[in-house]
């Protein structure tokens, strides 16, 4: 990968003066890769870090699946290592203690959402692609961008370090419900909260930067309705992060006060812990935490899914070689989702006893928000109609996204209605539902994006054969892992049980009225093997990713996919400042197969009339 030439710090006049003398001076490894202010390097930093965290989160998952399938049995191979690193209390004999299981559960959720998927979907792709797509030389605030990445890394370090403190990492689930989160005797929760505050700061800086960039730095002619849908998706996502995260930050500060300063924001009067009346002033409200948490938590779902939809949309348009169907519907649906996602949060709280009337309101809004989601999916599906589809690896992942997200979305409807949710709440059905949305849904879209934009980042293609192996392996084993969970959940298997429900199984308590049948318990083994196979299926991807940087097939041109959007109209990889000359946008984003044109794609910056013709202004310079 050729480092972009770093010529100046855009925000520091002194450096400008200074650097003019050394315009071609190589700024060195640290400036180029570690403390870079270039949006493309920051995007790659985010992407690499997020993929590492995703792998780490996946390992936690494997350990948990082992524990569920073989409760209390020592973990093969790495059991002794676990005991050595985490101590005999947490992992005696190399087996996972219930406390350790709980902390793995909490940290798997936290890492996957806040350290892996959001940074990859929003920060990595957004950073790399959005400024290129809108024809900007960089983000609006390059140094804020760098600070955002650094806060993210710092937050990640705090999270990971918490595994090694006495008492271990946070154990109250990724939702950290109070009073549980305050009563577990470990400082892991305080680490979790400090880590979250850093991550929220990071995403806040990122969100401000993205919105300001999209509003301010669109190239001449790039009107709002000429923005690629991916940019719209990132724009709405940034607003969600900007406005939904601060309430969680507020809640985090209050829970931190509860944990460290012994306040009682979320601790009710008369709270008993371990059979004794807790020494707290009381008067707090556990429900308040849940409201504040889910006020972030639900928009967060759309933070996870909107960038994925944006990626899929770009790849579908490119590989069907025709304009996306219903561009305006997509844009308005994304905006509607953005707005509605702020008023559906309490559908996570039907079981809290917050009241029927409130539940009714949130059921209604939840049903309404499914409409724009379905519109988006329908538009993407109809876009396939009549296309001459190219089945390359990015397209396979994008196509895989559609049914997988469909399953995830549709199985969410029963959870949005209180009567059905009361039965299904807190079971494996919920796990299956949101994992279908995020794992084979969003993560497939992220894989698609990596395969798709890799040639722009490196000038080389990723290997197509191993890409297909990666896709089919992931596709099959994702379903092997998550499909059985629907069945388990509907049979009543609860989530967050360190023993995988053995104590409720027909084998352990024969003759009890309602038990988990053996067939349902046997699925644990099935899922464990599926998860391990899923892990194996990622090996071709990891090797392909690194091998192709140096040895991949050289991309035929700057625009190997023959795409219309602006990020492909730059040199490869784009230099510092991105474009050879400032682009001027003349048309909408998806002009594929326009009748009368020689090529089947017309880039956004291609004027209507060839440059050699007499001087006619190509398009009104509308901002």
């Amino acid at each position, binding site marked *: 990968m050729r480092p972009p030439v770093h010529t100046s710090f855009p925000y520091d006049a002194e450096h400008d003066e200074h650097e003019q003398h050394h315009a071609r001076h190589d700024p060195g490894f640290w400036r180029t890769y570690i403390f870079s202010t270039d949006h493309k390097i920051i995007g790659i930093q985010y992407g690499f870090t997020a993929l590492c965290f995703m792998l780490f989160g996946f390992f936690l998952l494997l350990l948990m699946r082992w524990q569920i399938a073989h409760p209390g049995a020592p973990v093969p191979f790495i059991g002794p290592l676990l005991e050595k690193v985490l101590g005999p209390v947490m992992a005696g004999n190399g087996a996972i203690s219930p406390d350790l299981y709980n902390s793995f559960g909490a940290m798997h959720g936290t890492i996957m959402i806040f350290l892996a998927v959001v940074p990859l979907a929003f920060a990595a792709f957004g950073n790399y692609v959005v400024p290129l797509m809108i024809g900007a*030389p960089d983000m609006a605030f390059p140094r804020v961008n760098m600070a955002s990445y650094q806060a993210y890394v710092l937050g990640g370090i705090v999270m990971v370090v918490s595994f090694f403190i006495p008492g271990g990492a946070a154990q109250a689930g990724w939702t950290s419900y109070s009073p549980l989160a305050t009563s577990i005797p470990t400082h892991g929760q305080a680490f979790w909260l400090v880590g979250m505050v850093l991550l929220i700061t990071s995403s806040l800086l990122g969100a401000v930067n993205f919105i300001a960039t999209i509003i301010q730095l669109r190239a001449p002619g790039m009107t709002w309705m000429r923005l690629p849908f991916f940019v719209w998706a990132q724009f709405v996502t940034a607003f969600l992060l900007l406005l939904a995260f*601060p309430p969680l930050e507020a809640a985090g500060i209050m829970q931190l*006060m509860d944990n460290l300063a012994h306040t009682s*924001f979320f601790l009710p009067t008369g709270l008993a812990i371990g059979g004794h009346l807790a020494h707290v*002033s009381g*008067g707090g409200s556990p429900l308040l935490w849940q409201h504040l948490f889910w006020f972030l938590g639900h928009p967060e779902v759309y933070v996870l899914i909107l960038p994925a939809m944006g990626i899929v949309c770009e790849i579908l348009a490119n590989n069907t070689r025709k304009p996306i169907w219903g561009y305006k519907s997509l844009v308005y649906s994304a905006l509607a989702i953005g707005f509605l996602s702020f008023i559906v949060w309490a559908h996570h709280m039907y079981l809290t006893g917050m009241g029927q009337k409130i539940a009714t309101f949130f059921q209604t809004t939840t049903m309404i928000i499914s409409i724009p989601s379905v519109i988006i999916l329908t538009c993407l599906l109809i876009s396939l109609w009549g296309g001459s589809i190219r089945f390359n690896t990015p397209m396979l992942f994008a196509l895989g996204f559609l049914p997988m997200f469909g399953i995830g979305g549709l199985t969410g409807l029963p959870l949005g209605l209180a009567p059905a949710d009361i039965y299904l709440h807190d079971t494996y059905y919920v796990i299956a539902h949101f994992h279908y949305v995020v794992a084979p849904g969003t993560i497939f879209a992220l894989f698609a994006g990596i395969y798709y934009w890799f040639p722009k980042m490196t000038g080389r293609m990723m290997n197509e054969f191993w890409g297909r192996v990666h896709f089919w392996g992931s596709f099959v084993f994702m379903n092997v892992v998550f499909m059985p969970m629907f069945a388990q959940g509907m049979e009543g298997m609860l989530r967050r049980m360190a023993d995988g429900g053995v104590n409720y199984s027909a084998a352990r308590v024969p003759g009890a009225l309602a038990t988990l049948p053996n067939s349902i318990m046997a699925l644990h083994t099935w899922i464990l093997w599926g998860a391990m196979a899923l892990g194996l299926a990622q090996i071709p991807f990891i090797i392909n990713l690194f091998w192709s940087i140096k040895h991949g097939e050289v991309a035929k041109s700057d625009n190997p996919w023959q795409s219309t959007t602006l990020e492909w109209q730059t040199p490869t990889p784009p230099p510092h400042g991105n474009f050879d000359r400032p682009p001027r946008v003349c048309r909408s984003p998806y002009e594929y197969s326009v009748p009368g044109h020689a090529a089947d794609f017309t880039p956004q910056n291609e004027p209507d009339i060839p440059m050699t013709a007499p001087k006619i202004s190509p398009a009104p310079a509308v901002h």
Partner: protein
Amino acid sequence: MEIPYAVQPRPDTGLYNAKAGIWLFLASEVMLFGALFSAYVLLRVGAVPGEWPHGWLNVTLGTINTLVLALSAITTLLAWVACKTRQFDKFKFFHACTLLLALTFLCIKGYEYHDKWIHYEIQLTDGRIADGHMLENNPKEDYVVIEGRYVADEKDLYDLRAQKDIKTGEIKIPRPQIKEMENYGPWHNTYLALYFTLTGLHALHILGGSIVIGYLWGPGRRMWKTDPERFTNRVEVSGLFWHFVDLVWIFLFPVLYLM
């Protein structure tokens, strides 16, 4: 490479980049403090009737602080106007005033915190409560001395608005008589938890704003010579933040001191 619209406003949005950025940042700040105020509403509505403290804070000091911040808002604006009209000396003067006012605010706030910190509620073994400011609390001695009073019931401490002339005096309490002793920190009750958290976060904002303004007033003023327009933008953006912080106090003052 130069970022477009870093200094000059973009014609169709009418904003330079930093101004767009600061408004977005302030929107998120509204959500941050909005969530804290919602927490206040929910916790206060859910409190046991009659047990929400009233009159625990010094309204005079709160009023003075309100005026201090209001005045600093004016000097911030005048500092920006001075930059716009290219009168750098005036800028230096007005932002010096802003910084002094910010310092005054923090000192008064610090005094108020200290006042709560040394204020103790001491439950005695005979059921009475001694309440007042700690004078002597030497762990080596077997007594403590407070400047305060006795009350028969905790309920007498909740609403101090009606109790105009509270008589206090020096009280010496032997330690064996003390059942429980706790100062008026955030752990004391929900009201104080809210008070310390909300005003503490606000004070941190004041501190952050002061550091930025102090930077522009001090080492950052070099930019005035090289790029006065960008410097003026910086003054404007930091001023917008300062006005927001002032505005938060305008809500905090009645909510915590008066209501």
